C-alpha cells in the first residue's frame, strides 16, 4: 500500500477546508460508537477486564514463537495449509500460486485491514481476478476507489447522501433510497458474487494456539458467506493475533466487540479450524483452507523494547473514536492504512519512521486514547517515544529545533529569560504575525494579548 503520511498537515488542511462534511460525519459516527462503548461497560469491572486482556496479550507476544508453532501444528492436523509470509510480496506469491493453480476468476473478500496493509486488492486485480469487497462499508469505498478511513467503519467519512448518489450512479437505486433499500441493492450484487466466486478471503481477529482456531467477528454475515461458500478460503492473520488458550477467546470476543461498537458481542462470530468436511455428498465448507501468517514488520517491532506494546492492539478502533484529532479529519489525513492514535504508533514500527514521521506528532497528547484502550496500550507514552526518535534522527523541522534550543538556553539562564519576556512585549504585532510558529498560530487565531507587566514585575512592586 502506498503511504502518504508525510503530507499529513496538507491532507488534514484539505479535508478540513475543502470537505467540511467529512468532519461532521466522522464526529457524529465516532461519538455514537463511543457512547455505545461507554454503555457496554457500564455494569462491568472494565479495569479488571482490561488488565486481564493486557496480561494475556503481553504473555502471548512474549511467547510468540511457541504459540505460533502450536497454532500451526493444530491447523495442519485439521488439513489447513499454513504459509509464513515475512513481507507483502511473500503474501502476494501465495495468492499468485493459488490463483494460477485453481484458475481463480472471481474472489469475495471479507473486511481485512491486513489486506489493505499489504496492498492485496491491486495485486489480485493485476492477476486478473475480479474482486468484491463484501462488507457494506468496504463495498462502498471500493466503488469510490478510496481506502478505508477507520479500522471498524471504513466508510464513516461518507454521509447517507454520498452513498445515495453513488448507488444511484452505479446500481440504479433512486436518489432518495433509504438505507435499507441501499443495503438491499448491495446485497443483490454481493449475493451473486458469493455464489459464483472461486476464492474467499478473510482476515482473522484472533488465532487460538491451543485449538488452531481462527475467530472472526462481524455484523453482516458476509464473513460467514465469504469463508464458507467459495471452494477456497484464504485467511490472512497477523502473527500478533495469537491467543494462547481456547478459554481466552470468549472474553476477548466480548471486550473487542464492546470496545468497537458497544455490542455485547458481534452479531456473528465464525470459528474456523480447517477446510470443509463432507456431509453426505456435500462439503460443508471450502475444499481448501489456507492460513497466511503475516509478519510485515511485526517481528521487528516486537524486538523494540520501548515500542512493542503497540502490538497488543486488537483493532477495535476505540482510540480513534475518542480521539479529538481523528474526529476533525477522519482517517484519510493520516495517509496510512491504520489511522488515529494507534496508527501513529504502529506505522513507525511496521514501515519505519522515515515514511510516517508526522504521525506521532498528529496528537495533542490529551490521553483520551489510553483511557479507552481495552488492552491498556500506553499510547501517549509510545507517541512520545517516536517523537523523541524523530528528533534524534533529525526528521523534524529545523526552525523548530533552533527555537527550542534557544528556549532551553533562556530557561536555564534567568536573565536571558527576562530579556526574552521583555522582547515579547515590545515586538509589534505585525512583526509577530510573520514569525515562524506565530504565523501558524495566527492563521486561525488572534495572537495572545501581552499584558503590560509580567508577574515577576508585579511581585517586585509588591502584591496588595
Amino acid at each position, binding site marked *: 500500500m502506498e503511504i502518504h503520511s508525510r503530507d499529513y*498537515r496538507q491532507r488534514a488542511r484539505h479535508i478540513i477546508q475543502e470537505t467540511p462534511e467529512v468532519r461532521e460525519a466522522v464526529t457524529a459516527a465516532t461519538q455514537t460508537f463511543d457512547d455505545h462503548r461507554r454503555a457496554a461497560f457500564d455494569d462491568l469491572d472494565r479495569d479488571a477486564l482490561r488488565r486481564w486482556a493486557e496480561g494475556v496479550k503481553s504473555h502471548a507476544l512474549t511467547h510468540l514463537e511457541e504459540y505460533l508453532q502450536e497454532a500451526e501444528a493444530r491447523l495442519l492436523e485439521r488439513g489447513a495449509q499454513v504459509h509464513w509470509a515475512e513481507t507483502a510480496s511473500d503474501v502476494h506469491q501465495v495468492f499468485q500460486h493459488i490463483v494460477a493453480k485453481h484458475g481463480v476468476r472471481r474472489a469475495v473478500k471479507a473486511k481485512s485491514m491486513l489486506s489493505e496493509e499489504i496492498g492485496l486488492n491491486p495485486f489480485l486485480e493485476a492477476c486478473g481476478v475480479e474482486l468484491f469487497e463484501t462488507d457494506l462499508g468496504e463495498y462502498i469505498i471500493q466503488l469510490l476507489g478510496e481506502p478505508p478511513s477507520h479500522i471498524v467503519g471504513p466508510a464513516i467519512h461518507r454521509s447517507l447522501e454520498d452513498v445515495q448518489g453513488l448507488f444511484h450512479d452505479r446500481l440504479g437505486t433512486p436518489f432518495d433510497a433509504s438505507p435499507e433499500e441501499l443495503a438491499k441493492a448491495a446485497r443483490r450484487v454481493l449475493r451473486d458474487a458469493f455464489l459464483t466466486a472461486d476464492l474467499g478471503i478473510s482476515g482473522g481477529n484472533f488465532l487460538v494456539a491451543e485449538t488452531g482456531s481462527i475467530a472472526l467477528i462481524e455484523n453482516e454475515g458476509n464473513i460467514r458467506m465469504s469463508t464458507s461458500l467459495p471452494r477456497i478460503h484464504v485467511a490472512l492473520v497477523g502473527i500478533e493475533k495469537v491467543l494462547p488458550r481456547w478459554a481466552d477467546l470468549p472474553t476477548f470476543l466480548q471486550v473487542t466487540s464492546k470496545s468497537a461498537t458497544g455490542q455485547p458481542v458481534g452479531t456473528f462470530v465464525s470459528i474456523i479450524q480447517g477446510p470443509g468436511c463432507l456431509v453426505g455428498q456435500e462439503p460443508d465448507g471450502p475444499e481448501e483452507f489456507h492460513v497466511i501468517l503475516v509478519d510485515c514488520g511485526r517481528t521487528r517491532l516486537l524486538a523494540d523494547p520501548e515500542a512493542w506494546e503497540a502490538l497488543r492492539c486488537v483493532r477495535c478502533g476505540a482510540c480513534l473514536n475518542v480521539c479529538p484529532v481523528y474526529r476533525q479529519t477522519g482517517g484519510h489525513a493520516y495517509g496510512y492504512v491504520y489511522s488515529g492514535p494507534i496508527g501513529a504508533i504502529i506505522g513507525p514500527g511496521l514501515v519505519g519512521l522515515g515514511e510516517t514521521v508526522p504521525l506521532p506528532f498528529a496528537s*495533542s497528547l490529551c*490521553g483520551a486514547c489510553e483511557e479507552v484502550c481495552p488492552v491498556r496500550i500506553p499510547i501517549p507514552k509510545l507517541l512520545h517515544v*517516536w517523537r523523541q526518535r524523530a*528528533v534524534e534522527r533529525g526528521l*523534524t523541522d529545523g526552525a523548530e529545533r533552533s527555537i527550542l534550543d534557544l528556549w532551553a538556553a533562556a530557561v536555564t539562564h534567568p536573565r536571558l529569560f527576562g530579556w526574552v519576556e521583555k522582547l515579547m512585549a515590545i515586538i509589534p504585532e505585525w512583526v509577530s504575525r510573520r514569525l515562524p*510558529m506565530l504565523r501558524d*498560530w495566527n492563521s486561525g487565531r488572534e495572537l495572545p494579548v501581552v499584558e503590560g507587566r509580567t508577574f515577576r514585575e508585579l*511581585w517586585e512592586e509588591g502584591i496588595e
Partner: protein
Amino acid sequence: MRVSLFVTCLGDRFFADAAADAVRLLRSLDIEVDFPTGQTCCGQPAWNAGHVPEARRMAAYTAKVFADAEHVVLPSGSCAAMLRCTYPHLLGSSELGERSYELAEFLVDVLGVTVLGGGLEGRRLAYHHGCHALRELGVQSQPMQLLTSAGARVVPWEMDQECCGFGGLFSVKAPEVSVAMADRKLETLPEVETVVSADGGCLLHLDGRARRRGMGIHFRSLASLLWEARRGNP
C-alpha cells in the same frame, strides 16, 4: 505553612494578574507565599515535542530553583502534571513532584478548603478541563467544588473534558486541526459569558480562536475566579 509559587512561563507573561490573584488568595488563607525569582519554564514544550535532553536540562534547573520549597503551587494543571508525572522520568526522582500541586488541588486536597466564600453568587460559568490536569493529576472535582460552593453555576458542557486542541507545539505543527478542535469546543459551548480553566495554554488558544470568530466570550484563569470567590466573602 509556606508555599512557593511556580507562576510558569505562560503565567508570568500572559496571566500576571491571575497569578497575583493566586498570591492574594493564598495569603488570605494565612499561607506564606514566596516566589523564587530564578524560576522560568518547566520544560513541557520541549518534552512534548520530543526534545528530551533540553527538557531534562530545564527540569534539572527547575528542581534546583525549588529545592528548598515546602510546597510548590502552580496555577497550571499541565505544568503541575509535568512536575509530578514527567520529572521522575527525566530526573530519576519523584521528590519535587510529590510536593507540587495545581492550585485548586492544593486548596482542596492539602488545605482541606472546600468553601472559599460566596463571591461568585449568580455567575454562570463553563469549565474547561485541561487534559493533563484531568487525566494525569486526576483533578476533576476540586475546581468544581470551589466554584460551586462560592455560588457559581457551572453549566453542563458536553465537551468539557474533550481536548481543546492546544497541545503545546501541536497548535502550530497542525494548526488547522488544532483550530478545528477549538471550534468543536466553541460550537458546543452552552450560553455563558465566561469560560474558566486551570490551563493558560488552553485559554490562550480558545480565546484566540473565539476572538478570530468574533465571539464575545471571556476566557479566564481559575486563579482569578477563585480569588473573586474569596474576596466576595463578607
